[in-house]
């Protein structure tokens, strides 16, 4: 019973960490970043690089975040900004970028599945049952990520300006906020978070050039269902992630992988605001 509940919580934590970067980009820039999966993969390969260089596995996380942040800056400037008025084309362009990044990674690292060193090995004893220590660590990591974003949005000047841009960009500009800069920083942050999430999840399985893609669609569905609210995202992660675990355990793992997609699509059909309260 305990491992089951922990599975739900850790799955929700992972989903939240993966989707958070997508959420802030959607909120501020009003576009869906289809390159999110590619940034995720970049993060995984950053961790691989750290492993290959023989550095401490903990260095993977900042390395991933920084590489994602910088890549995000390039992408925002050259691809996103020109497509400000064409959001559907922005989706396509970011998808193309995802392919480019994927191919670059394949060229440099090759197609094989690789493994990354985990910073925390072994299991812990939780209420009498043993459970993977790394997965428990991920719960903490998700809380840190969520808390960090919330703090950034709620406590800093930049966060206040970002919230203003999310609510009413024209008014924000009329009050002296440089919304272009806010958009740039938000995108960089979103890409950095995606990359960080990639580094967080690779010790669980493996690294390969296509690892980002399955997470892509799940993250989208979660974000669509949460409108633009971190709290709703957390709620969606728990509910839908929990459903995924239930189906995987009691029906089949393959169908479990589809649960989030199917449930989210149906939920949005019935209630287009999803989990958001309005």
């Amino acid at each position: 019973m305990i491992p089951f509940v922990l599975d739900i919580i850790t799955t929700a934590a992972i989903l939240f960490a993966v989707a958070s970067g997508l959420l802030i980009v959607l909120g501020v820039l009003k576009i869906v970043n289809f390159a999110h999966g590619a940034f995720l993969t970049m993060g995984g390969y950053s961790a691989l690089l750290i492993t290959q260089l023989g550095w401490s596995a903990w260095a993977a996380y900042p390395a991933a975040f920084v590489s994602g942040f910088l890549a995000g800056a390039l992408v925002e400037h050259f691809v996103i900004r020109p497509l400000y008025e064409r959001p559907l084309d922005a989706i396509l362009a970011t998808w193309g970028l995802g392919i480019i990044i994927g191919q670059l990674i394949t060229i440099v690292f090759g197609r094989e599945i690789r493994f990354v060193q985990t910073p925390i090995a072994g299991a812990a004893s939780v209420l009498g049952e043993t459970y993977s220590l790394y997965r428990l660590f991920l719960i903490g990591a998700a809380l840190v990520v969520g808390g960090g974003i919330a703090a950034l949005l709620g406590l800093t000047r930049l966060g206040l300006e970002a919230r203003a841009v999310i609510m009413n960009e024209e008014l924000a500009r009329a009050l002296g906020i440089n919304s272009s800069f806010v958009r740039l920083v938000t995108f960089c942050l979103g890409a950095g978070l995606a990359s960080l999430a990639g580094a967080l999840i690779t010790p669980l399985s493996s690294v390969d050039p296509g690892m980002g893609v399955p997470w892509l669609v799940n993250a989208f569905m979660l974000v669509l269902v949460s409108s633009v609210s971190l709290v709703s995202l957390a709620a969606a992660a728990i509910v839908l992630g929990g459903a995924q675990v239930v189906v995987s355990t009691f029906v089949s793992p393959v169908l479990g992988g589809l649960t989030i997609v199917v449930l989210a699509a149906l939920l949005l059909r019935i209630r287009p605001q999803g989990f958001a309260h309005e």
Partner: protein
Amino acid sequence: MNEGGAGGPVVAPRRRILPAHASIGLGVAVLAGAAMTVAPAALDTYTVNILVRSFVYAATALTVDILWGYCGILTFGQAAFFGVGAYAAGIAFTYVGFSPQTAILALLAGLALSAAVAAIVGWISFFHGASPLYVAIVTLALPIIVVQLLYSGGTFTGSSSGLVGYSTFDLSVEAWFAITGVGLVVLTVVAWFFVNSDFGRVLVAIRENEQRCTYLGINTSLLKILLMVAMAMVAAVAGYAYAGYTVVVAPEIASFVFGTELVMWVALGGRGTLIGPVVGTVAIDLTSAYLSGNLPFVWKLIVGTIFVLVIVMLPQGLLPVIAAAARRLQRYLPRRTARSSALPVSLVPAASLVRQAFGSDAPALQIIGLDRRFAGLRVLEGLSFTALGGQLLSIVGPNGAGKTTLMRCLSDGFERSGGSVAVFGNDIAGYPPHRVARFGIGRSFQTTSLFETLTVAQCLRLARFRLDHTAMWSRSAQLALPDGAMRVLAATGLDRHLADESRSLSHGMKRALELAMVLAQDPKVLLLDEPTAGLSRSERTLIGRVLVDLSRREGLCILLIEHDLDFVRDISTRIIVLHQGKVLLDGSVEDVVKSDLVRSIYAGKVLQPAPRVAS
């Protein structure tokens, strides 16, 4: 062909006209088809092999172009239907064996299954208020689901390796080449007639301004679902052919990777051009086959990069760029008589809708206790009034009084938060705009974002979609319009611009077209939102006279939102003053003009301004 001019409409014989360049196009198509049958002799076997596959892909890309390029539905899901058709063949031939009966049954099964799935996907994605983003995501999820189902099918579906080596049609490679090649040509020709027909313009209109279409009484959700079903079936046939030819069906052919590749090919070839995606797909697939042997990842990298560059800098794709260059070259070739591609259209009077269809005794509009709340604000509060045919009722009030919101609540059953609205006794309940339009409501909009690339005639025909039959494979040479619309066209001179694209019209003409489109629906109640915004004085007078005419002679009930109070005073029979979401005053022009209450809202208090204090 006569054009209806100021002298009055001329009845022309009902003739179907082919779009211009049709004869040239057909000639080219016949040549291409013939080439398909003899080309294999000139090409090496490897190329012929690849091309068969390319032709099948191109047919699928064509369906994506129709859905996305023409109708504006961005879909990554056509691969799923391709896969369904392919697996129908693969499974049938593997487990039942190959025979003519099996072949036909497998094809029918593929068609039925893909149609059913498309109908479900369409029902999920296309509804009043759906966002195009949601549609894209659902169509992305569809192939993922299909692939997962195939994986979980175990040995029955062959799981990840798929089904191989089943017995199939006994045809040579050259025969397959001829079949798929000719099939592609035929499909392209048919598709071309389809998208250039009158019905094809409806698809384009949905892409350009779907909301406007729903207010013209067009059930856009249903049309999109039907289109998706049709395109799914075409993709299934393509998949079926693929399975018959390659004798391998694996989950990759139903994957979203393939689905996004299709979108890429369409984008690169030129979305909305039909020929571009077809040629582009064949060219890219063939080149990929040759290059990917040597540098597989670099080639994909190059394609991906070109794709992103095209999206950012050349959103129309490469074909239009090539076409523009070709046109510039054409200047150096000997001139032939220029043929206008726009079709001359003659106007004929439409039979007016029988009044008995609407409740004869009930008032045109009856509004009781109308409420609209939004984010805690009460935009409209307890609004009640009745409007009759023959009244020209102007709704005035300061900004934020709720006028446009009122219009929305009258034309869209979803909008209001409370109260009831009845049109000729029919409660609009929770009906979407296209159903409310059928009760006799015609609504015009403030902004003139009409249908940019459609001609004036095509816009008007769009307004008649619900009432007249719309040709699906050709263009009709006639356009039937009711008297009111005819008069607007004649009075504003629009009847001389029937063949002009609506984006080339002046602002005043656009407003006139907007009004004519509304009148073309033969409504009994007109809801006009600032019809004279941005017009010159003479244009306003003209519109005013037309409106007075319509209410007096035709007995239309007209509701008008206007800021130009002189205009309102001249033409109205009744004025309702809205203030902060409530009816402040409802009476004749005299009553309102003389009212102190109204003056105090508009021009400040009647008393002298307060003495100025030194500051």
